[in-house]
């Protein structure tokens, strides 16, 4: 599929560049109805602020890692992501008596696709993070250092081991993590990605 960026892709670029002038437009133009939605559904302005921020950070990571490009208007895409994130949050809080006030946001197939892409990205990201924490402390440290410092020679130097050993250990630790992810239930739901 030919990915032609929508004009609103400026918001994605602003996240990458940490451009507060453009980012303020997101808060100015698109956030009020999210706040209104959260407030209508058992939340307050602080909840809405968290939801908005976490959604934006997720898009930031997706753009960094996967070169995510927005091909539809930002408004509906962002609103739907925040809305679903809030519904998930309510579920987590175990609020069973909540009556969700549905609104009639119409959304195109393409927008739906982009929303799902971002959601899948986040679920995978969260799964990886969860499993990473199940690794032993040594593996965690080694992986963190290796990914932060690109050169394995330097990593070996910092850790006081030989280059060969550092290389071997890194692939072993990542292999261990691969096994952890592979055997998790969650992974099978995400397989498509």
């Amino acid at each position, binding site marked *: 599929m030919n990915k032609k960026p929508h004009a609103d892709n400026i918001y994605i670029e602003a*996240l990458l560049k*940490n451009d*507060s*002038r453009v*980012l*303020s437009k*997101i*808060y*100015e*133009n698109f*956030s*009020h*109805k999210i*706040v*209104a939605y959260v407030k*209508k559904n058992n939340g*307050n*302005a*602080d909840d*809405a*602020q968290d939801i*908005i*921020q976490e959604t*934006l*950070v997720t898009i*930031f*990571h997706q753009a*960094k*890692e996967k070169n995510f490009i927005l091909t539809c208007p930002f408004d509906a895409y962002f609103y739907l992501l925040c809305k679903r994130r809030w519904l998930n949050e309510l579920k987590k809080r175990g609020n069973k008596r909540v009556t969700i*006030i549905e*609104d009639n946001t119409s959304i195109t197939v393409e927008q739906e696709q982009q929303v799902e892409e971002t959601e899948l990205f986040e679920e*995978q*990201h969260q799964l*990886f*993070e969860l499993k*990473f924490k199940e690794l032993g402390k040594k593996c965690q440290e080694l*992986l*963190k250092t290796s*990914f*932060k410092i690109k050169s394995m020679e330097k990593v070996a130097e910092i850790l006081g081991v030989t280059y060969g050993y550092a*290389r*071997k250990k*890194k*692939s*072993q630790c*990542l*292999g261990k*993590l*691969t096994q952890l*992810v*592979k055997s998790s239930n969650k*992974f099978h739901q995400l397989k498509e990605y």
Partner: protein
Amino acid sequence: MKEEKYIVFDKYLTNELTQEALTSFEDKLQSDAVFKQEFEIYKALNSSLSSKFENEEEEKKLRDTLSNLGSKYLTKEKVNKKKGKVISLVNYKQLMVAASIALLIGFFIFKDGNPVYNDFSNHTPLELVVRGENNTTTIKAEEAFNSKNYKEAFKQLSILANKNPNDTEIQLYKGISLLELNQYAKAEVIFNKISSGDSSFSNTAKWYTALSFLKQGKLKECKKTLKTIPESAEEYKQAKKLLRKL
């Protein structure tokens, strides 16, 4: 054996395999589905963790920016709204006293005890300066509106509206200024547009549409509009009170 597998994965990703090893690796990817799946996970983890740790600092900076913007635009608004609520409540009590006195007097002297526009026209002060730019038009608009100089406020708000065509709050206050200037038709066009949109101001706009009818003495229309304000709206209480008086 297993360990070696991961070393090969790693070398493949860094383009360090010899031609021979590369061919055999790619063959295995084609023929062995389990092997392929493991490699896919390994690759995804490599990319995900690498991106995560590489961008840790940037993420922190972005979070700082977003926190600032969030409290500036969202939490600040919350404070405003609280303030607005308190003011309207205090005013409301005074208003109730005034209204009951008026009602009493009305009973004795006048036959007409209908509520009037001025009893309900306590506008939440306009606060736009928070929106960053040190803009003299913004300051002028605020000062004019908050000191009830609606002619000047309308002028400044119109300039702002041209610059920010999508800013609903500016539109709303432009409408209120028009209403204060008795330009009902123009004001109602603005309120109707906001009411039918999905901004957080839509119920406020409905309330002002009702006030416009009240000011013109169109009590039937006023009643009808008040009934469209949902229970969840901040204006609901006021609307109910006014309805009772009509």
